[in-house]
């Protein structure tokens, strides 16, 4: 039972070493490898996720910046358009006033012409009266008295004609 033979003792040591190598290489080695690999993969995917998030944030900022500049541009365009519209409307109103002035002036001119024409007509009437008077006087002697009488008559007639 307690006899000791070195051969079987050495065999046992070799056996234990074989078990150790098998377990180390195929059990502990494989499991540790796969766990390490999995941890690496997890770390990688975390890194990738962080990168994607960062990219998303960057592009969102870009988008917001662009949106802001678009807003600014829009405001500029609107104010430009309002200015242009103001200028255009004042131009149009100015022209309209000008037109109106012209029309009024033309109307005044017309009125003047008509008045002048009427004056001419009136003058012609006076002339005719003068002629009538002259014709009437032609048959009478021109005394101082008669002359004055004639003059009064003329004035009377003239005022009558007015």
């Amino acid at each position: 039972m307690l006899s000791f033979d070195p051969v079987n003792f050495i065999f046992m040591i070799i056996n234990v070493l074989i078990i150790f190598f098998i377990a180390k290489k195929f059990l502990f080695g494989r499991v540790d490898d796969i766990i390490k690999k999995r941890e690496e993969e997890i770390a990688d995917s975390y890194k990738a996720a962080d990168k994607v998030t960062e990219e998303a944030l960057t592009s969102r900022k870009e988008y917001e910046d662009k949106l802001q500049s678009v807003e600014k541009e829009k405001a500029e365009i609107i104010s430009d358009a309002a200015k242009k519209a103001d200028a255009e409307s004042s131009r149009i109103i100015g022209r309209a006033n000008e037109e109106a002035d012209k029309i009024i002036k033309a109307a005044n001119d017309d009125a003047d012409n008509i008045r002048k024409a009427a004056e001419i007509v009136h003058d012609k009437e006076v002339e005719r009266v003068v002629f009538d008077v002259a014709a009437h006087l032609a048959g009478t002697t021109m005394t101082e008295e008669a002359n004055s009488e004639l003059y009064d008559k003329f004035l009377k007639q003239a005022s009558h004609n007015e």
Partner: protein
Amino acid sequence: MNSLAEELQKELEIPTAFTIPVGGGIAVNQTVVITWGIIAFLFALILILTRGFVTQNPTKRQVAVEAFVTWIENLLGGNMDEKSHRYIPYLGSVLIFLAISNIIGIFDIAPPTKDLRTTVALALMSIVLVQIAGIREHHVGGWLKGFAKPIAVMTPMNILELIIKPLSLCMRLFGNVFAAFVIMELVKMVIPVGIPAALSLYFDLFDGLLQAYVFVFLTSLYINEAVE
């Protein structure tokens, strides 16, 4: 009473399984052959269980194997320093081998740990490993100086420990398995049916696993002490 002693003696004999016809003939005993069987069984089992491991969506088999290995690593690493974690695979292998050896009695196969040669071999390897761990950590000079710690008077004691530690390791393991075997044989002689099955649960399963753990646990403590 005499016949009982003879019977036990016979049971504890390690018969020669076969002789290698080299030189004067090398007698290979039963324990070694049974251990070869355990090696073959373990190798096949490990190869089957660890086949096709993947990092994503592992099979239930892979999850179970990973959980088992992680459990062993935590069990042993829990009371060990970070520096001595590199010895976990060796301790794990010994634990698995001892567990199988100790509970193999259930299948009516003589446990290899019943043979003193096995436990002596394991204890010797353990103490060599402990010294290697000490030399690796403190180099030869530091390792030698370690014997005179904490005070120089302790040197003979520390040197004695080199023998006492492995001796206690192998005797404890051998004694437990041996005693369990003897008790089981005695019980079988008195009551051949029923009771032995129940007692076998304690002596072969519980005590077998417990002693396997104790052996590895003490070795890990010695390693820890050596690298400190």
